C-alpha cells in the first residue's frame, strides 16, 4: 500500500526497535504494513533510530515525516532514549504483539537477537502471559554465532546456517559460555575437526541453550521464531528438534518487534481520548 498520504495523518503509526545489533522501523496504517527498514545500530542509537525511521517512511512511499505520525512506540535497548517516540514498551511485549499479528494462532515465541534471547507465552490476543529471558550471558544469542563465525573464518554470518546444514557429524560443543565455547572450538579446530561439523556443533549448542530456557514455559502451537537469528535455517532446525515442535518463521523475522511496537502504537492512540491527555503522558516527547 503506497498511496500518497496527507500531513498529520491520524491513521499512521510507527514502531521503532533499536536493538544491540540492528535498528528496525515499521510504518503501519489501518490496513497493515506500509513500509519498513532495517539497518545496523552502529555507535549512536539516536542516529540509527532517526535513519531507520526515515528509511521506513521513504519505503512506505508516504510524503510525510516523523512528526506527522499519529503515535510512535519505541522498543529495544534504546527505547527510553528516543525523543520522537510517544511511549517506550519492552521488546518482549512488542514481539508478542507482532508475532500474533502475523500468525493469529501463535501461542509461543522464541526470539533470538544480537545480545539476548527470550521465550514468550501469549494468549489468543497476543498478550504476554509468561516469559523468560537470558541472564547476563551471551551463550544463547546471535553474538555467540558471530564470535564463532570469526573463529571459524566465515566472512558472512549468513553463510553459517547453510554450512551447518551441510554437516554429517556435528561436533559436541559446550553451550554454557561463549568464551569457553570459543576455546573449545579453537582446540577442536586444532585437532583437525571438519569445519562444517564444528559449525553444526556451534549451532546445536546455541539452540540447546535456548531450548532449555524455553522449556521452563509451556510450549503450545503455533510456535513462532523471531529476531535476526531466525533467518538461520540451522538454528531453526536444531531448535525444532530440541523443543519437539515446528517453528514458524516470518518472512522478515527481524522486524517483528518493530511491527508489534507499531501495532501497540495504534492501540495506544485509539484508547487515549484526547490530544491533551496524550501530551501529558509523554515523558519522551
Amino acid at each position, binding site marked *: 500500500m503506497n498511496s500518497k498520504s496527507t500531513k498529520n495523518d491520524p491513521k499512521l503509526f510507527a514502531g521503532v526497535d533499536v536493538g544491540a545489533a540492528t535498528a528496525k522501523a515499521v510504518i503501519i496504517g489501518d490496513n497493515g504494513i506500509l513500509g519498513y527498514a532495517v539497518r545496523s545500530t552502529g555507535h549512536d542509537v539516536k542516529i540509527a533510530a532517526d535513519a531507520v525511521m526515515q528509511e521506513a517512511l521513504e519505503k512506505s512511499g508516504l510524503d510525510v515525516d516523523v512528526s506527522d505520525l499519529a503515535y510512535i512506540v519505541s522498543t529495544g535497548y534504546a527505547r527510553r532514549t528516543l525523543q520522537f517516540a510517544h511511549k517506550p*514498551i*519492552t*521488546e*518482549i*511485549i512488542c514481539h508478542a504483539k507482532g508475532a500474533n499479528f502475523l500468525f493469529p494462532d501463535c501461542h509461543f515465541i522464541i526470539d533470538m537477537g544480537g545480545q539476548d534471547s527470550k521465550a514468550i507465552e501469549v494468549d489468543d490476543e497476543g*498478550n*504476554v*502471559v*509468561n*516469559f523468560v*529471558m537470558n*541472564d*547476563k550471558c551471551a551463550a544463547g544469542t546471535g553474538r555467540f554465532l558471530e564470535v564463532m563465525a570469526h573463529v571459524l573464518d566465515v566472512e558472512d554470518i549468513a553463510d553459517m546456517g547453510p554450512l551447518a546444514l551441510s554437516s554429517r557429524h556435528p561436533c559436541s560443543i559446550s553451550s554454557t559460555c561463549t568464551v569457553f565455547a570459543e576455546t573449545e572450538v579453537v582446540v577442536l579446530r586444532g585437532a583437525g575437526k571438519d569445519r562444517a561439523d564444528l559449525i553444526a556443533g556451534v549451532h546445536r549448542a546455541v539452540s540447546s541453550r535456548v531450548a532449555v530456557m524455553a522449556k521452563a514455559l509451556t510450549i503450545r502451537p503455533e510456535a513462532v521464531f523471531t529476531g535476526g537469528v531466525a533467518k538461520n535455517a540451522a538454528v531453526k532446525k536444531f531448535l525444532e528438534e530440541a523443543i519437539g515442535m515446528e517453528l514458524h518463521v516470518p518472512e522478515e523475522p527481524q522486524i517483528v518487534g518493530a511491527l508489534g511496537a507499531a501495532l501497540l502504537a495504534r492501540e495506544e492512540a485509539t484508547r487515549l481520548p484526547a490530544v491533551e491527555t496524550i501530551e501529558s503522558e509523554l515523558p519522551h516527547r
Partner: protein
Amino acid sequence: MAYYDELFKLCGFEEKEIEEERPRIEKTLARLGIVPDDMPSAQSWVKQNHDLSLVGVRKLLGAWLKELIDLVLAKDEGKKVVYFGFPAILGPGLMLSASSDDVLVSAPDMVLDHTMGQIFNKLTPILEAGEANGLPPGHALCSLWQAKIGGIIKGMVPMPDLALASSYFCDMGSKADDLVTALYGVPVAYIDGVMDSRWGEYPRYLPQRVSYLGAQINQALKKSEEVLGIEVAPDAWEKSQIDSRGYINNLLKLLDLMRADPVPISVVELELLEALSGSSTGRGIREGIKAMNILISELEERVKAGKGVTEKGAPRVMMASGHTSDPRVTSLVEDAGLAVPLTMVLAQVGGPKHPPKKTYSTPGETIADHELASGPVHGTDAMIKMFQSGAKVMKLDGFIANYLFNCRPASLTSHTQKEYLERTTGLPVLALETDNFDSRTYSAESLRTKVETFAYMLKKRKEASRN
C-alpha cells in the same frame, strides 16, 4: 558547622545530637576514609534514593549511621565485638548484647552496605578488598561476606573477638566465618541450625527440632561466655524482648497501613527498617524503633489523605527482598508502575504461625522455640504459605520472587516458589535473578526489560479483570 553536618541532618540527626557526638562522628569518618569531597555525591545519592519528606525515613537512615559509629569505634571504646551473619538466629546475639554493656553484637556487612552503600555510595572498594582477601567473586558466597572481610581488611570495622555462625536460611555463612578463623584466628561459635522442616509441617514444629537447635544455641552461648569473659544474664532474654516487642508491634501496624491503595511508602524504605532488625542488637535497632514510631504516624496521615508512592489502582506485588546497598534496583519495580505492599518480613509477621510454646527452661531452647514459631527457618514450604496468606491480605496481583544467583537457598527456592504459587494462587510470578547486595553484578538497567514486561502484563490482566 562541619562538612558532614548537612548530610547527617538529611539523615535525621538533630543539631544537638551532632554536637554531642561530633568527636565520635569525626573519628568514624576518618577511619572510613570519608572526606569533604564525598559530601556532594553522598547528599545527592541519599536525596535521589530516599523519600526525605518523611522524617521517619530520615531517622531510619540516622539509626543506621548510629549503628555504624558504635561499630567502628567499639574497640576504641573498650568493647568486645561479636559479629553474626545476616540473616541469623538473632536470639544469642540479643542475649549477649543484653548481658553486658561492654559487648557490641552486630552484622558489620549489613551496616556497611546500608551506610557505605546507601548513604556514602562508596561500597565498591570494600567489596574489592574482600575479593582480594580470600573471597573471590563467583564462589557461591554473596557479597555480604566480601563486605565483612573487606571492612576488616581496610580497618574500617574492628576485628571481632568472636563470630557467631548459624546455618539459618543462609547455610554458607559458617564457611565464610571459617575464613575469619583461618586468616585471623577469630574464634567461631557455631550454631548448627535446623533449617528445613518437612513440607507441610509449618506452622507446626516438632519438639525434637527445638531440643536440637536449643542445645546448639546453649553450646554457642557457653562458648561466647568463655571467649568474652562475661556471663549471660538470667533475665537477658526478657530484656532483649522488650525491644523486639516494640519492633514487632510496629511491623503489625505497618502491615495494616500497607493494605491501603495507593501504598503509602516505597519498598526502598521498608527495606531500611526491616534490615535493621536483623543487623543490630544495640543502638541501631533502638533508634530504628523510635524512627518507626514517627514513620507510622506520618504514614497514617498519608493513608488518611489518600496519598501514596504509586498510582491508585496500580498492580500490587510482593517483592521477596530489597537491595541493601543500591536502592535503584529496588526502585525499578515502583518506577515500572507496580505497588509493593508486601515484603518477606511483613509476610512473615502477618503469616500463619503457632505461638511459641514458652515451656522450655534453657536459654537455647527458649530462643529455638521463638525462632521456629516465627517462620522462615522452616524453609520453602513455610515461605510459600506466608506468601499465599499475604496475597489474600494485601490483594496482590503478582509476586516478584527475586533471588541472588550466588545464594544457594534463595536461588533454589525461587523457582519452586514460582511453580507452586502460580499453580495455587493463579497469580503471575516473576522469578528475577538479581544480586541484592551488589549492583556491580546486576544493575537496575540490566533488569529493566524483565520488570517492565511483568508490570505491563499485570496492568493488562488488571484491566481485563475490571472489564
